[in-house]
């Protein structure tokens, strides 16, 4: 049962991303003016590519799917006090393991799709396993080890796709890639379903099964974190290792568990691109999604619900960047400036609002 009770503290806490967003938009418009464009043109350009038609909006949602999963993966680890910077590498490896099942293991669709999803998760978790063990047994900080593992993953995957797993049959194919994924493992689209609901999503937009995976995972993580004992322990460890230790919580096990689950989620980031868009695995799958996840987790305040909004916001901004590039003289890369300044604003307002809330609570008590 969802109880919708107005809580003024929760409301204040939610304010900072909103303020941060609008402050960043002001920065954007100032930059636009400096470049010599009119704010009006910029706003129109952004609007055209993001919100002007149902198709555009569906595209934003489509882009948001992998971003959401990435943000979810990072935020789960953050909750346990683990800085999983290795989401990038974990999704490269997870995606490949899932793809291998999709390419080489003939199965009926009803089993094949769940299997590739499960193996993508296993692959991602395995790639997180070594940094997790290094942290638990040797005290090696996960930020260092996961950054290294990102590089190893990239090189490793590059080698496999160019070498043993190469599926190139004709010389005309330039992009290194694996063989084709079997039809039984390909993700279908939900566009028809949305059209039936009255949202005219055109065929070329990818609202595929990965959306279902994202929704299920989002709900699962929310339930885990806030409704179960394990989630409570994850949040406790992320808040204070000392207090948790004194309370008898097995701190290391909890952190390893959250780390692996984070890696498993990371393994799902590539589903859309590999199984719905391309139909094969390549070294060229979108890079940087793992790093976007860090910012998304931060903006979403590490809560599954917050990460939904943050992922949509990021998807919106990515599209907005293309819009600016297409219709004005403003470069696409301005979006990096905007996301950066937005994060900065949000962090600052978070702190200010947290102070205000503390003062309010004290007042309430006295």
């Amino acid at each position, binding site marked *: 049962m969802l109880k919708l009770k107005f809580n003024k503290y929760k409301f204040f806490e939610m304010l900072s991303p909103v303020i941060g967003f609008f402050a960043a938009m002001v920065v954007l418009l100032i930059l636009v003016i400096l470049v010599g464009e009119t704010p009006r043109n910029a706003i129109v350009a952004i609007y055209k590519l993001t919100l002007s038609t149902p198709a555009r909006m569906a595209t934003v949602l489509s882009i948001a799917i992998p971003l959401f999963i990435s943000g979810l993966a990072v935020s789960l680890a953050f909750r346990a006090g683990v800085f999983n910077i290795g989401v990038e590498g974990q999704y490269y490896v997870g995606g490949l393991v899932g793809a291998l099942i999709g390419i080489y293991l003939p199965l009926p669709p009803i089993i094949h799709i769940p299997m590739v999803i499960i193996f993508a998760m296993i692959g991602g978790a395995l790639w997180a396993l070594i940094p997790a063990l290094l942290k638990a047994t040797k005290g090696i900080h996960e930020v260092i080890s996961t950054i290294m593992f990102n590089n190893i993953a990239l090189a490793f995957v590059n080698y496999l796709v160019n070498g043993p797993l190469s599926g190139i049959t004709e010389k005309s194919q330039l992009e290194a890639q694996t063989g084709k994924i079997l039809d039984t493992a390909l993700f279908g689209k939900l566009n028809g379903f949305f059209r039936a609901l009255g949202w005219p999503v055109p065929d070329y937009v990818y609202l595929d099964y990965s959306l279902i995976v994202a929704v299920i995972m989002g709900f699962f993580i929310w339930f885990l974190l806030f409704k179960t004992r394990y989630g409570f322990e994850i949040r406790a460890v992320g808040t*204070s290792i000392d207090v948790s230790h*004194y309370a008898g919580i097995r701190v290391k096990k909890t952190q390893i568990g959250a780390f692996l689950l984070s890696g498993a989620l990371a393994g799902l980031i590539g589903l859309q691109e590999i199984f719905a868009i391309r139909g094969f695995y390549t070294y060229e799958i979108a890079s940087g999604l793992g790093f976007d996840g860090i910012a998304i987790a931060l903006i979403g305040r590490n809560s599954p619900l917050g990460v939904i909004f943050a992922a949509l916001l990021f998807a919106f901004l990515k599209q907005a960047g293309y819009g600016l590039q297409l219709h004005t003289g403003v470069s696409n890369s301005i979006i990096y400036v905007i996301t950066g300044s937005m994060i900065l604003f949000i962090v600052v307002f978070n702190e200010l609002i947290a102070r205000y809330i503390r003062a309010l609570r*004290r007042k309430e008590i006295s």
Partner: protein
Amino acid sequence: MSGTVLLRMEEITKTFPGVRANDKVSFDLKSGEIHALVGENGAGKTTLMKILYGLQKPDSGTIYLKNQAVSIKNPKDAIHQGIGMVHQHFMLVPPFTVLENIILGEESHRAGVLNMNIPAAKITEIIRENGLQVELNTNVEDLPVGLQQRVEILKVLYRGAEILVFDEPTAVLTPKKAKELFDTFRRMKEQGKGIIFISHKLDEVLTIADRITVIRRGRVIKTLERTEASKPLIAELMVGKPVFLEVDKKSKAAGRVILKTYDLQATSERGHKVLNGINLQVHAGEIYGIAGVEGNGQTELIEAIGQRVKLDAGDIQLEGESILTWDVRRRRDEGIGHIPEDRHKCGLLLPFSLADNITLGRHHQPPFVKKFQIIDKKQIRAYSRETIESFDIRTPSELTPANALSGGNQQRVIIAREMRFEPKLLVAAQPTRGVDIGAMEFIYSQLIRARDQGKAVLLISADLDEILSLADRVGVIFKGRIIKEFRREDTSREEIGFYMTGEQESA
């Protein structure tokens, strides 16, 4: 002996949202005077000192230094006007040497190249004048707490402070070190400096202060000359009602052995022998007090009982069963309750609700979890409401986050949690450190109650009076060994003090 007025704070008012932290507070300090500032936690002492040190701006009121109205905008300003503050939590850079720490921010240099000789000479002079012996080239992290405090004092003196503010300086010190600190106070007093001394320990205040100002709820209740002050009077002024610090404790026959340690030995990471054969027994219905100067193995003993740590030898038994292989959870589940020494670090999940904190440690057991380890919020809340009520924790609701509570109330939450888990053994480490008299009274009564309910209580405290008022038996710890045990009624403060310093070894 007291001379000219160094400092006068007049009608200082400071309001925080909802709280009048200082309400027309007037306070003055003469040269060659030690002026104690006492009051419960949250009474407004710290705010007043923050205003003096430029960390807070008053809403109204004036500060006069030597009869000149001044405005102090920030700590740098305060330092330049001759005001120095020795914080409760030290502001030192651990890997830096003593000398580097002292000059930090006031480095003397030529074209950016540090000159260490001039300050070193000056500091040596200050050390000599004030009896603050400390090795200048040692790294601060290698110094014991008492010496780190000296470095803080030297920092302040090096900057030429005339007015020195000490915020609960003895909270971290052993009785012997506290005495040395007071010697330093007296020397500084002779040099005509003024000292503001904030403390909870009324004995100390009466020993060292010339005048005592009592603050309650943001107002000055009274400023007393030492000659007219007494412990009951100050205590009464502080809390607004007479407080009985005498503990009402009925004699009671102790029961079976609950905790037994057997030749415990442990070595620290640095290779020191920290536990050197601890043998002790705590019975049901008994408070066993461990007296000793801090750093003689108390912390390590508590850790060995509460957590799985590496021991060189020995055994710990709970009701005859060895607990060495048990992890923290198992130990808790089997009935070891723990009031941690460092409450801020180990006690509460501050952003979490009181309900979460009150069940923390048993949160994994029914009735707090249902099938499939799903949290039963209803049960947690009901249990917490009961706890809040029966332990008189002042909070708007059980869903309020712990960090919204005052320090004393936070300590109540920890004690209530441990008591309600009905442990067989309750380990209480420095349970009243830094709490006000009201909270102290509560803690004492709870420890006695635990004992009367037949729990075994192991009390570790740096406060000898606390041990003497609560314990049924006292063990004196020295260099990792219990060197002497007494029944409470067979011993005295002097006798325990004698053993605490390890005197009998040389005697």
